[in-house]
């Protein structure tokens, strides 16, 4: 029992999806219990897979290279094309399994409270289940096509969940935007996958890696292919320039944002690049692209997070920024750091989202200008939110601190000073906007009294996941240390979970960590001093540098640019093509041809004048012509 059954991980939730989607309304409570029970089972199964991977069932031998390849022929054409379904489990996979199953379970439990009384309640749970299935399928995929299938499936789930409140036009638009934007990346991904197949003849990831490492690819070709592949990752993980969909995706229910748009789906890109990193390692140009795109995204998103007023949007920018951190790590060649940060980020970011959901649930408001002073009314939410915020800000000893430290270390050692400094500054910005968020939400005078008046702590079923996640946010970083893992009984320590190639214990780098921590603390202090819970300050910031503020609020005008590009260029082109089709192909070509024939008939029929001499003349001319032509010919 264990890795061989990895395929069950997606199978259980997808079966539940089918059951609940089709028959949910005939079940008590629309079947939410079924989904949660199934999810719990999946968590257990995931744990079994992880333990199996850790060699738990094989004595105490440390066997990190353990993998499982289970294949099922899906489509095949002669000897040229074989598409199998296969599962593959390695250290990256188990991290993902852990993150996905745990966060999903927490979010589902939380949703029981949050979504209580909503229309399409059962459908919501069915979709969550479907999403989890797709995500799990994605992480256990052994080949790229299966991964692509799951990749699109999570996109679909995301689309449906963002558009869950589809009666709101904005939700429908956001869903559309998310799908189309990621779809643009997916075009790249699919092209990349097919390009890899074209050169290697296989979709199996491990075979491609082996081939790449043995130099089986042309380098330029491989670079191009990997860049296409990365386009897919960038789309899904909201990296510049495809980041625009994620903030809008907050139109979905908040637990969904926590699960999909913070913890799991958006890290699929990170997962993909991490999975393919051995290949990236052979083409460093592509890896550098990953690094700098990540860096740019991290910085840009952090600055946008400074001015956003919607809690969820701030968190969304933060997510984009943190994903940038992970890509920087990958670009620096450190799978360890990236996956570690992915791991910790999943917990504290979903915590923050769920916390904001709790706030929204209580007040019905989600703009910080309308909040404030909730600390006393919602203590559990407040405390857990604070924990999450500090983790995000990267303050020791919370989870975020450890993983961010690893990334900064990787950045310094691989990327050089410029990367390090920029990244550290971004980390400081993170601390700054986190401070702003916490302060404006929970402290200071309430700015909307009616909302404040009937604000209340959320029910137990919602606070329980908050507490669990808060706990994880605290300890998740620490478990990386060998000793902790061994204490828990894991052979070799839990930290080995995130090792891909060589056994490498986490090291603490006091100099780097110290510098970054100092910067973050400074930022927190500055934030405390500046905002102190007063909303007017926000307005003052606007007055201080209106152009800059406006640029940040308008997200560097990227959305405008895209909108214009779509409206002017794409729709303009479509207009031209439609015009050509209507006027030239259709009216001139087809109708015109038909009319031309009809017109010929109309002209010709007037030859038939009705007069006998004319008729006779026609006959005479006929004869004379025949005779003359004949004479001329002979």
């Amino acid at each position, binding site marked *: 029992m264990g890795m061989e059954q990895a395929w069950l991980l997606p199978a259980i939730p997808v079966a539940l999806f089918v059951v609940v989607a089709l028959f949910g309304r005939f079940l008590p409570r629309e079947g939410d219990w079924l989904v949660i029970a199934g999810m719990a089972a999946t968590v257990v199964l995931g744990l079994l897979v992880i333990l199996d991977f850790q060699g738990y069932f094989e004595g105490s031998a440390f066997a990190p290279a353990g993998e499982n390849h289970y294949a099922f022929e899906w489509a095949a054409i002669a000897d040229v094309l074989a598409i199998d379904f296969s599962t593959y489990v390695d250290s990256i996979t188990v991290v993902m399994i852990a993150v996905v199953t745990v966060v999903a379970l927490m979010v589902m439990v939380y949703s029981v409270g949050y979504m209580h009384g909503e229309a399409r309640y059962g459908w919501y749970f069915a979709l969550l289940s479907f999403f989890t299935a797709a995500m799990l399928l994605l992480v256990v995929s052994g080949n790229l096509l299966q991964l692509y299938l799951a990749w699109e499936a999570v996109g679909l789930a995301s689309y449906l969940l963002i558009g869950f409140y589809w009666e709101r036009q904005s939700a429908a638009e956001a869903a559309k935007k998310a799908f189309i934007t990621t779809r643009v990346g997916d075009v790249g991904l699919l092209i990349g996958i097919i390009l890899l197949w074209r050169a290697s003849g296989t979709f199996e990831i491990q075979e491609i890696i082996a081939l790449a490492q043995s130099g089986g690819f042309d380098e330029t070709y491989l670079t191009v292919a990997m860049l296409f592949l990365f386009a897919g990752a960038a789309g899904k993980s909201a990296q510049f320039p495809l980041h625009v969909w994620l903030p809008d995706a907050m139109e979905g229910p908040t637990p969904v944002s926590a699960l999909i748009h913070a913890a799991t789906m958006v890290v699929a890109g990170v997962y993909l690049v991490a999975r393919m990193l051995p290949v990236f390692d052979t083409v460093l140009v592509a890896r550098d692209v990953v690094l700098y795109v990540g860096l740019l995204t991290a910085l840009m998103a952090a600055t946008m997070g400074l001015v956003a007023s919607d809690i969820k949007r701030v968190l969304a920018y933060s997510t984009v920024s943190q994903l940038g951190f992970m890509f920087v790590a990958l670009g620096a060649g450190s799978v360890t750091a990236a996956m570690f940060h992915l791991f910790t980020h999943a917990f504290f970011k979903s915590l923050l989202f769920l916390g904001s959901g709790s706030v929204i649930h209580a007040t019905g408001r989600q703009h910080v200008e309308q909040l404030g002073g909730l600390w006393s009314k919602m203590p559990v939410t407040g405390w857990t939110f604070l924990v999450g915020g500090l983790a995000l800000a990267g303050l020791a000893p919370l989870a975020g601190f450890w993983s961010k430290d690893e990334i900064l270390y990787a950045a310094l050692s691989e990327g050089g000073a410029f990367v390090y400094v920029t990244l550290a500054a971004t980390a400081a910005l993170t601390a700054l906007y986190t401070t702003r968020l916490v302060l404006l939400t929970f402290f200071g005078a309430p700015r909307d009294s009616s909302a404040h008046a009937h604000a209340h702590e959320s029910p137990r079923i919602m606070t329980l996941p908050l507490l669990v996640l808060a706990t994880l946010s605290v300890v998740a970083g620490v478990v990386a240390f060998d000793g902790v893992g061994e204490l828990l009984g894991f052979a070799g320590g839990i930290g080995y979970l995130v090792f891909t190639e060589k056994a490498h214990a986490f090291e603490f780098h006091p100099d780097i960590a110290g510098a970054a921590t100092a910067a973050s603390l400074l930022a927190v202090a500055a934030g405390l001093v500046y905002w102190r819970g007063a909303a007017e300050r926000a307005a003052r910031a606007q007055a201080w540098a209106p152009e800059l503020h406006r640029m940040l609020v308008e997200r560097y005008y990227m959305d405008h640019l895209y909108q214009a590009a779509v409206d002017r260029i794409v729709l303009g082109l479509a207009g031209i093509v439609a015009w050509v089709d209507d006027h030239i192909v259709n009216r001139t070509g087809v109708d015109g041809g038909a009319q031309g024939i009809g017109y010929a008939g109309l002209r010709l029929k007037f030859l038939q004048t009705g*007069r006998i*001499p*004319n008729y006779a*003349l026609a006959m*005479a*001319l006929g*004869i*004379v012509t025949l*005779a*003359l032509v004949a*004479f001329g010919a002979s």
Partner: protein
Amino acid sequence: MLRRLPLPSQFDRIIITGGLVAGVALAPLLLVLLVLLAVDEITAPEFVFWLVAAIVVGGALGTVLLPNIVYAALSLVATLLGVAGVYLLLGSEFLALAQVLIYGGGVVILLLFGLMLTNATDDPVVTDGSQKPFAAMVGLLLAGVIIAAAYDATWGGSELAATSLRAFGERLFGDFMVPFIIIAVLLDIALTGAYVNARRERAPAGDDQEASS
């Protein structure tokens, strides 16, 4: 009915005028031919041929060119008689006879009746159609083409053989009996057609009543 024919008031005039015109036109030709005959350029049959040909062609031209419809009809008579002469030259007395009888005795009278019944004599001048130039062009081209073909060809024999009326009769009433019978049917049909169309329509009552009885 007879009173409506162009007789006799115009008849003499037409005959005299026609004769004069024909005489004036034919005189030079006659002269030329006589000279040619005298110097033995042409034989006697040729002399006759050209004379007859002149009458035929002249009459035909008169038929299609004369503005007066009555004159045109009379020119036709000249042509048809000329054609009978051609038959004689070719040694076919029977055909010449038939030509004179059928045309002279039948067709021309019929045509004159036609002229009379359509009151053509009230307004004897007919105009030609507007496509006269085309007609002339087509006529010339056609004549040219046919003549070219006639002279280009190498015809099997060049001797005019004597024909026997008896052989002709045996062929006609022996081998070609069936076509001959068909011709009879055909004439009957023509008669029916002429009768049906030419007779003045009665009031459209009698027959229909009978038909529905």
